[in-house]
Structures are given as structure tokens and as C-alpha cells.
């Protein structure tokens, strides 16, 4: 399935999806509260069947926080990138997809650890790389650590 057909199929699943131009993969921006339903639909859909989440990235855009899902279909071998954004920097929360893609369990813990984005309904949301007593979320752009980060 080429990107144009993929676009149409996705629009039929989620009409509010916004497509980005000039990107390596077909990139969609969707509202943060719809990610769980959307992921479930595109995985279970017979025609597109995105069953492999190969990269899950947290990102700090400065004014908002985002999560990027790189998805692939092992059956049809097409790929999309799904992006969600949340402007809440104090208590950001999105729905987990770890009941759909099991690999998300660890990757969401990592994003929670490094960006502080909470994933609702995650079975075991704890810090994974840093110590439990660590303060702050280091990969955020406004993170300050005067001891360990040496600016040059």
C-alpha cells in the first residue's frame, strides 16, 4: 500500500488526523487523548495492520512535550509515524499503548523517567534508568543540573 492509499485509510479511521509534509515517513499528528483508540484500530485493521512499534520517542519541543510512535506493519511492510503533543508541562499525561504493543511498557517507562510524561493505565510506571530518588527529568530542555552538566 503506498502512502496515498495509506493516507486515505487513516483518514477514514480518524478524520481529525493532520498530515505533515516533506517527511521521511508518512507522519500524522493526532490529538493526545485519541492515541490509544487510534493505535488499537490501526493494529487490528486488516488492511493496514500496524503491529510493530519499532521506536517510541519522547520529545521536548520547548513549549510542549510530545511522544512519537514509529510504527510498521510486518505484513504489508509500510510505515507511519504518529505524533502526539501535550502542552501541559506540569502534569503531562497520555494514555498508554502498552496493552497493544508490549514493547511500549519499557519504552514508556523510559519516557516517564526522562521526560516526566505520565502514561495512564500503565501497569508499572516507575523510573527505569534513573534512581527512584532522582529529582527532575533530565532530557527536558529546562532541566538544570549544575553539578553534572558542564557547559562549554
Amino acid at each position, binding site marked *: 500500500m503506498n502512502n496515498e492509499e495509506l493516507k486515505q485509510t487513516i483518514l477514514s479511521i480518524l478524520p481529525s488526523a493532520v498530515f505533515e509534509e*516533506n*517527511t*521521511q*515517513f508518512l*507522519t500524522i499528528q493526532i490529538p493526545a487523548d485519541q492515541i490509544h483508540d487510534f493505535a488499537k484500530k490501526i493494529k487490528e485493521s486488516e488492511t493496514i495492520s500496524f*503491529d*510493530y*512499534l*519499532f*521506536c517510541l*520517542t*519522547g*520529545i*521536548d519541543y520547548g513549549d510542549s512535550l510530545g511522544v*512519537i510512535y*514509529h510504527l510498521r506493519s*510486518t505484513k504489508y*511492510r509500510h510505515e507511519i*509515524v504518529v505524533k502526539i503533543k501535550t502542552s501541559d508541562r506540569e502534569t503531562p499525561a497520555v494514555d498508554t499503548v502498552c496493552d497493544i*504493543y*508490549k*514493547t511500549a*511498557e*519499557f*519504552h514508556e517507562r*523510559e519516557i516517564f523517567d*526522562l521526560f516526566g510524561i505520565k502514561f495512564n493505565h500503565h501497569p508499572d510506571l516507575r*523510573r*527505569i*534508568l*534513573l*534512581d527512584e530518588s532522582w529529582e527532575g527529568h*533530565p*532530557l527536558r530542555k529546562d532541566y538544570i543540573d549544575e553539578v553534572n*552538566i558542564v*557547559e*562549554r
Partner: protein
Amino acid sequence: MTDLIQEIEQQEYIINMGPQHPSTHGVLRLVLSLKGEIVKNVEPHCGYIHRGIEKMCEKLTYQQIIHLTDRLDYLSAHINNAAVCLLVEKALGIEVPERVKYIRTIIDELTRIASHQLWWCSFGMDLGGLTCFFYGLRDREHILDIFEETTGGRLIQSYYTPGGLMKDIHPNFQKRVKDFIKYFRKILPEYDQLLTGNVIMQARSKGIGKLSLEDAISFGATGPSGRGSGFACDVRKLHPYHLYDKVNFKEILYQEGDTFARYKVRMDEMWESMSIIEQLIDNIPEGDFTAKMKPIIKLPEGEYYQRVEAARGEFGVYILSKGDKYPYRVKFRSPNFSNLSILNTIVPGQKIADLVAIGGSLDYVIPDIDR
């Protein structure tokens, strides 16, 4: 009395395997709840050598990132470097010389063989056959010598650079590689005699730690761990980079999904890697060893993703550039991190000794998990 027995039955016998333990291959901590010898639950605790490489990369230029990707999965250092280099080249639209592609393919495959050799010897050691360890390291030494002569380093080489290579290959390179292939083709059957055919080893690995195809895809278990379950995830076939679309090689797939299948995938991959090298080593074209690059690389604004097939699976780099000489966000999709998450699915119900064998067959490199 029965109350007491019931109470004891309900208590969990919890053991910390690691962070200092011979078979976790580094500083990984596994919290096991046991019932006798049987593992009921395993919970990995990682992050003991988290160095914040993704954060550090945000303050480094693209050339400087290379020396950090070496330190992720140090056993497939060249392949990780290739991911960043390919990403930068793709973003800038640079076509690297043909010679570079040949050399990169050969060195990537040598890295894969060296990594699988180390995996083989440590897997043998996990099963208790210490002799494997020395045979594997002895043969890996030949590859490290080839690397040392050409790149100047043995483990952490930083040989690739965006646009090409640091230096041209050493004049002895081709001869040494051919000698090594000749030598290793003779030695590899010995590995089979010592360990693969061994009845104890087969009894300890067949049917142990079964990972179904659905789970492999859902967990994103790639590399030999995924291909042992029949998950066709070889990036070299799916998204060819370097010269992988021009050479003949098989994607090794086994359907069983157990420890032995993962073992066989790696053993067969060593043969495949050797055949890839043999196809290329005599045909390296003359030419430059690097494309013309500006001293300061600035990626155009945008998002880039590049994946390569590291020795342990799909290694991906995601870079968001805002047009500066530094990346805005770097994310490394490390194969081991995903492979680690399958542990709690395939281990419960197996014995402690099986956990060690499964851990050996998944072949963790802890710095790659912790980053």
C-alpha cells in the same frame, strides 16, 4: 502444621541476581521470585550505567556523536556508528564513494562475526562450559587485530565519520581478512563439535524460553532473538543500506523460538557474514575514502530516522534537527532494550539455570540498554 506449610508456600523467595553477577553480562539486576528452583517472576532493574548519552548528544556536533555511539553497544560499535553516519549523509544528500560502501560493509560484517564470537563464548560459559570462552576469544582476537591495524582501536574504534572513513584501510587489510576467513571456516565446525552437537547443551536449550512470533513482534524483539521466532526483521533485507542490496545472503529464520533456535540463528549468521565478506573483499574499488564534507555539518531542519542491523537487532537513530550544528533531540532505539523486556514473558516457569541460558541466548550488552 498445614497452616504453616501454606504460609511458607505463599511466601516468595526473592533473589537479587546482580548487579554483580557472572551471568548478567554486566551490571544488570534481575529480581527473581523463586519457588524452589523454578522462577515465578523476574523483574529487570536497569540503569546502573546510565550515562545520559542522548542528553550529551544534544550538545555535540555530528562528528562528535560518533564516539558516543561506539559506547552504546560496544560489541557492534562500527554498526552503530554507521547508523549515525548514514543518517547524516541521507539528510545532507551526500553520496559516499563506492570504496567507502565496500569497506563499511566488510567492516560491519567483521563486527558482526566478532560480536557473535563473543556471544558464543559467553553463552558457553553461561551453560558452564568454560572452554568455549577461550576458544571464542582466541578467534575474536584475529578480528580485533585486523581492526587495530586499520582503525587504531580494538574495541572502541570511531572509524566511521559522516561522509566516509577516518582513514583509508591499511594495505594489509585485504590479505588479513582473507586469511581470517580461511582460518575461521576451519574453526567454526569445531564450535559445533564442542557445543552445538553436545547432548547436554541441546537438552538445556531445546524447548527452553519459547518466544512466540506474536510476542516477538509485539515486544519488538529483533535481531537473532526475533529471527529465532520466525520474525523476518533483518534490516539488511528490508531496508538495504551500504551494499546489502548487491550481495547475496540469506536471512536466517528459525521458527521454534526457543533458546536453541536463537543459538542456531547466530551460528548460521556467522557463515552468512563470511560469505558476504568473501563476495566483497576482492572487489574493493579504488577511490577516495571519504566524500567531500564541510568542516561544520548542519543538518537541514527536520526529522530523520535511520536504522541498521546491529549484531543484536535493529538499531535505530532518530534525530530532530532545528538547523543547528547540534541536534535538537537524539534518540537511540537500542535493540537490547526491547529484547530485555521479553524476559518476564519467557522466563516464568523455567528454572534458574534456564534463566541463565535464556539470558545468554538473548545476548545483552548492558551499556546498550542503559545508554
